[in-house]
């Protein structure tokens, strides 16, 4: 019971970190970094809290399967999006941009 509450609190914390990173980070690649790691950990912690709550059963196995799928799929999709951005020429953010250079490709 206490462990479930602790896992849920930790999961909510990491989800909040991911959402804050998406809101506040300065460019696309840093936002990608926030989502890829913090949110994956939040998914695994949420699923662990649910599994501990329902106890050992087929349902727990299914929740574990959803968590395993998201654990593999979330980094894969963020990697694909990041690679697509890099190949279309979106340039990473720098603290002191070169004078006259564009800050990065923007869509129309």
């Amino acid at each position, binding site marked *: 019971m206490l462990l479930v509450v602790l896992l849920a609190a930790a999961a909510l914390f990491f989800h909040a970190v991911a959402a804050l990173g998406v809101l506040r980070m300065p460019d696309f690649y840093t936002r990608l970094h926030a989502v890829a790691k913090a949110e994956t950990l939040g998914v695994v912690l949420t699923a662990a809290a*649910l599994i501990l709550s329902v106890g050992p059963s087929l349902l727990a196995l299914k929740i574990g399967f959803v968590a395993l799928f998201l654990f593999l799929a979330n980094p894969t999709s963020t990697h694909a999006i990041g690679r697509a951005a890099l190949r279309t020429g979106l340039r990473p953010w720098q603290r002191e941009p070169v004078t006259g250079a564009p800050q990065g490709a923007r869509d129309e």
Partner: protein
Amino acid sequence: MTPPALFLGMAAGLLVLVTAYLYRLAAGPTVFDRLLGLSGFGTTTTLIFLLIGAVYERLDMFVDVSLAYALLMFIGSLAAARYFERGGAGR
């Protein structure tokens, strides 16, 4: 065994946090920011499905829904990333 108020509160917290991804989906400067917002939105919504199922004591039904939703979001995100890697419809 766990009181459903815990999962209800967690689902409410995730519903608040999902607005960050919706903001990035609506206002992201590049098209890849929008894709990232869609991907994060899909992952968080899958978890909200699971938590709502735990609140309603019908988790055996909601877990199948969330698994199908996660699969659809993953395939869609990969397809959209591959499409915009080629330059989208403009080029």
